[in-house]
């Protein structure tokens, strides 16, 4: 193994990196370099190379050792029976879903379904999810998931503002909304200039003297209160405002749906549909809207279309509205989802069906009734007589005393105030739990007589006017898979339609589709990590907190920063957190007017969207012909906005996959003008171990743990986007009112959180849970622990080598668009298909779809440059797979030339008709200008391992013109 130091690589690194010494020698020969260090040295500019090699990372552990250490962390978490509620409930993940989805690489290693032809399985799973949400909320269209409930509420607020005809700037907020939601609303509203007005509603219409563009109602309330919001909804509508209802999906099986109550938007979480609490995440939030608001939906939406043969096919719809495409015109920065978790929640509904879900809800609410009686017997006062699963008590003793008694018995209650406590019942609350909790409440003599089997009828505690009478989940998919055999086969049937990393390379530029090792995934479903409530007391989560602190210190170390926060649960949220930190910093220095954010024209569109949501003004900086940021233009823009310059946001290596030489000049110029430098860490896989953002001018960055650090893409989420910063920005990194451990803050900042000084008092909170999505952090922890500094460095080298090898092999057939000094690219390369299109009429789409016939997922299409493909092989692919890709691309080039040369008509050739389904090459007479063999088996290597796409090329325009976003009726497939 050719390592930088000549030492043997750790055992795990040898498993993670696909190319070993012989292969690397072969590849280096093609490139004309003697060793891997010599190659990377030539590619990475001297000006940014690491100055000190010291690292806090321990030497690489073996897989077995890493698991033992994770066990030790796990053993320091205590799994109590969490009855805290507040949007997080213990749940039973059906084992058939856990094994076949959560722990199945066919689901978790897939990418976002941008290539619909190879993604029909998870697109169907997502349309099940959308149908489930739309049915239960009684609204017309649901998107394919949000990051969590509280950020979904923020998106609901933003949606209400742009859709409302009211000129008001005020959003009405339910005082009985979840506390974390209120904290998040405060932070996000302040950034974009929305004024929040709290009201208790008090069973009466909202204040008529305040004009509002929208209102939030929590249903049932955070306190558990169930009440009829119809009057409030009517009053808000009378002011031209929109109503956002944050609703509990399980409760909606029994309660009148938000849609029937008149709501415009419903949001919430689907966590309790079989997704473990995981100390806060990841879970799928949801957002649904009434008819007429579909085009205002943020995030992703799956719709029904048809393929080239006219068959039903799913694909992401209204993609032109995705926020990263709208750049500075964006109204949201959400561009990802929680696909894996949405699939799980949707499958929970598929497995239980409408009757099963209703039975769970009835059991939950009747058990809540039992505890209400027990509480009354114990001398406590129930505050709200109408409830679903949550009770708020005025305690007979002090709140602290009751919470402690519960804790001693193994139950977590939530202390609301000196004399008030609340707790929630969930599907895991057993009869034994009920007796134990009754004893805690002082009702020692409680018996289970009233809970005999069959006693589940909803009683007087849910008002008649709010008892649901409408049907839901009537589609056959929710009424078919009752046996485990049937469920297992349905999941297999869907997984078989899709192309994930368990089939072959996914060379998506800017996405870093590397190995998600099995050992890294092990700890995710351990109960000590999965079964923890995000607001559990510190004493229960010491293992978690120590692991998170260690991981944060490692992430800060490898990027050259002083502090990091894992709270942001997507890259976009990391960007937002970083930019809000910059704003907070400028404000703390009395420079509130610094709001201009410079963003290069080559940047990913999400950068601009995040800047807008951070309340910044985007100024675009030009790029030169080679795709580099134009230094002169940076200087000119800085001069133009001298006093208002907040930040420059730049991706390094650039979105064009090139190490820019002038990066230091650029960062220096920004600092001289009083600005801060945000370096987008999307391409960190080209830098780790060779350079650190903090050492070449970065003040703050977000990292994508789902790219560089092995968290699987999950078919389009979960993501984790930690934000790391220099010490001066550290006090402004994300915080949370319920964080178990607070990092010490400077006095001024601490005072602001208390509301004691100027400015709006708020936490810089960006996710619902204090540590974002902790249950998947052991994946990244394990990766770094098993790689060590050496391994990470060698992974970078192998990734850069693989990209340069592909560029060198393909250059003869396709121009490579950009390269740095020495003609080298970084960890990805862009091949230009525009000359080919010009000469032959063959488009990027044709090439991408034809790759499917060769058994490949297409590279990134037309980003960052239209008419190109961006290829990122990562370090995990071996030489045979790289060569198989080269073979496919060369064969495709020859096919295109045959089209250009007139051998095949422009509208009847294997590229034009790609991809080919089994049906399309078997059924009927073959009347094409090329053979069946050419269509399906274009190269011999496909003979032994053939992936058959389930549909032909999907018609994007037809689906967008005929919007339909729920499960199509079975007749559609006839």
């Amino acid at each position, binding site marked *: 193994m050719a390592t930088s130091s000549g030492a043997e690589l750790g055992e795990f690194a040898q498993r993670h990196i696909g190319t070993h010494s012989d292969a690397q020698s072969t590849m280096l020969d093609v490139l004309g370099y003697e060793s891997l260090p010599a190659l990377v040295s030539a590619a990475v500019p001297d000006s940014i190379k690491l100055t000190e090699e010291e690292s806090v990372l321990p030497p690489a552990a073996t897989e077995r050792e890493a698991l033992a250490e994770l066990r030790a962390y796990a053993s320091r978490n205590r799994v109590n029976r969490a009855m805290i509620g507040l949007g997080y409930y213990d749940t039973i993940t059906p084992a058939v879903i856990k094994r076949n989805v959560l722990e199945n690489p066919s689901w978790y290693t897939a990418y976002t379904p941008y290539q619909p032809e190879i993604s029909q399985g998870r697109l169907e799973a997502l349309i099940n999810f959308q149908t489930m949400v739309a049915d239960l909320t009684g609204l017309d269209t649901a998107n394919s998931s949000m990051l969590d409930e509280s950020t979904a509420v923020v998106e609901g607020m933003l949606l209400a503002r742009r859709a409302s005809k009211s000129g008001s700037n005020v959003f009405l907020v339910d005082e009985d909304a979840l506390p974390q939601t209120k904290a998040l609303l405060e932070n996000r509203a302040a950034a974009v200039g929305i004024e929040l007005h709290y009201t208790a509603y008090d069973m009466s219409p909202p204040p008529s003297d305040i004009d509002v563009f929208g209102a939030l109602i929590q249903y049932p309330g955070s306190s558990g209160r169930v009440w009829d919001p119809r009057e409030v909804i009517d009053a808000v509508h009378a002011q031209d405002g929109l109503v956002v209802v944050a609703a509990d999906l399980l409760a909606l099986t029994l309660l009148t749906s938000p849609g029937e109550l008149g709501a415009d938007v419903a949001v919430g979480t689907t966590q309790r549909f079989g997704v473990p609490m995981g100390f806060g995440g990841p879970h799928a939030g949801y957002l649904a809207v009434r008819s007429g608001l579909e085009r205002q939906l943020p995030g992703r939406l799956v719709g029904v279309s048809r393929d080239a043969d006219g068959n039903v096919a799913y694909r992401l719809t209204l993609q032109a509205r995705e926020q990263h495409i709208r750049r500075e015109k964006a109204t949201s920065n959400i561009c990802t989802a929680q696909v894996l978790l949405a699939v799980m929640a949707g499958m929970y509904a598929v497995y239980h069906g409408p009757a099963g879900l209703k039975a769970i809800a009835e059991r939950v609410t009747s058990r809540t009734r039992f505890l209400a009686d027990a509480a009354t017997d114990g001398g406590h006062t129930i505050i709200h007589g109408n409830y679903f699963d949550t009770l708020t008590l005025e305690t007979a003793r002090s709140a602290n005393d009751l919470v402690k008694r519960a804790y001693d018995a193994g139950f977590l209650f939530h202390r609301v105030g000196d004399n008030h406590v609340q707790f929630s019942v969930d599907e895991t609350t057993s009869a034994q739990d009920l007796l134990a909790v009754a004893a805690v409440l002082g009702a020692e003599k409680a018996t289970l007589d009233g809970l005999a089997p069959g006693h589940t009828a909803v009683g007087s505690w849910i008002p008649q006017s709010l008892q649901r009478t409408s049907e839901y989940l009537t589609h056959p998919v929710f009424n078919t898979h009752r046996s485990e055999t049937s469920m297992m086969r349905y999941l297999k049937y869907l997984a078989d339609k899709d192309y994930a990393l368990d089939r072959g390379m996914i060379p998506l530029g800017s996405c870093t589709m590397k190995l998600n090792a099995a050992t890294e995934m092990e700890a995710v479903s351990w109960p000590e990590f999965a079964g923890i409530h995000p607001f559990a007391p510190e004493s229960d989560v010491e293992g978690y907190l120590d692991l998170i602190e260690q991981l944060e210190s490692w992430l800060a170390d490898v990027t050259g920063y002083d502090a990091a926060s894992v709270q942001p649960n997507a890259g976009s949220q990391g960007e937002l957190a970083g930019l809000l930190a910059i704003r907070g910093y400028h404000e703390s220095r009395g420079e509130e007017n610094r709001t201009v954010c410079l963003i290069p024209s080559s940047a990913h569109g999400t950068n601009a969207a995040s800047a807008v949501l951070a309340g910044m003004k985007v100024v675009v900086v030009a790029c030169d012909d080679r795709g580099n940021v134009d230094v002169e233009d940076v200087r000119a823009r800085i001069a133009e906005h001298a006093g208002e310059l907040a930040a420059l946001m730049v991706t390094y290596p650039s979105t064009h996959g090139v190490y820019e030489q002038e990066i230091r000049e650029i960062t220096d110029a920004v600092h001289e003008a009083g600005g801060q430098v945000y370096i987008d860490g999307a391409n960190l896989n080209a830098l780790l171990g060779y350079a650190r953002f903090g050492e070449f001018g970065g003040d703050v960055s977000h990292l994508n743990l789902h790219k560089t650090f092995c968290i699987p893409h999950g078919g389009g989420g979960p993501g984790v986007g930690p934000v790391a910063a220099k010490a001066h920005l550290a006090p402004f990194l994300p915080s949370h009112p319920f964080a178990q451990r607070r990092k010490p803050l400077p006095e001024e900042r601490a005072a602001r959180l208390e509301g004691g000084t100027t400015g709006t008092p708020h936490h810089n909170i960006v996710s619902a849970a204090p540590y974002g999505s902790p249950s998947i952090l052991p994946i990244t922890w394990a990766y770094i622990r098993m790689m060590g500094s050496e391994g990470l460095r060698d992974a970078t080298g192998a990734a850069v080598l693989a990209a340069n090898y592909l560029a060198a092999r393909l250059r003869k057939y396709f121009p490579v668009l950009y390269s740095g000094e020495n003609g080298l690219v970084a960890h990805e390369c862009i091949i230009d298909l525009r000359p080919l299109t010009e000469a032959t009429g063959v488009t990027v789409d044709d090439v991408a779809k034809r790759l499917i016939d060769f058994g490949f997922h297409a590279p990134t299409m037309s980003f960052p440059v239209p008419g190109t493909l961006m290829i990122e092989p990562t370090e995990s692919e071996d030489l045979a797979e790289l060569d198989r890709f080269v073979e496919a691309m060369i064969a495709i080039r020859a096919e295109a030339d045959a089209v250009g040369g007139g051998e095949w008509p422009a509208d009847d050739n294997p590229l034009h008709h790609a991809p080919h389904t089994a049906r399309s090459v078997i059924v009927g007479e073959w009347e094409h200008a090329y053979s069946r063999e050419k269509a399906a088996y274009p190269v011999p290597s496909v003979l032994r391992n053939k992936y058959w796409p389930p549909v032909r090329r999907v018609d994007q325009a037809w689906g*967008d013109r005929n919007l339909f976003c729920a499960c199509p009726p079975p007749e559609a497939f006839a």
Partner: protein
Amino acid sequence: MADKNTLKFTPEHEWLDISGTVATIGITDYAAEKLGDVVFVELPKVGSSIQSGKVVGEIESTKSVGELFAPVDGTVTEANGAVTDRPELVNEDPFGAGWMIKVEVADASVFDSLDLLDFAAYTALVGE
């Protein structure tokens, strides 16, 4: 389809067919081609008053979301329902069946005060 030589154009790739105090407004073939397959068109309500330079509608394709700008101050007298029902008309016949709105101005002289291009100047602008 209107004779392009009698139309006026804006740098935002819109065309105006002016007749007295009323102008029929649409987007040019150049704009339609750049957008690609148009899938959704949203137009202002009939009777609404519009202000020059303001966004009054949306033209969405599979690739991007374009905006319809009001080229003049006036009142919307007609909105083309055919194009909202069948957005593909924008691609098929941008100067004919793909028209968007009709706008009435206070006085025909308002049009003279606008900085509009003739067909030759617009062609030069888009470099064709």
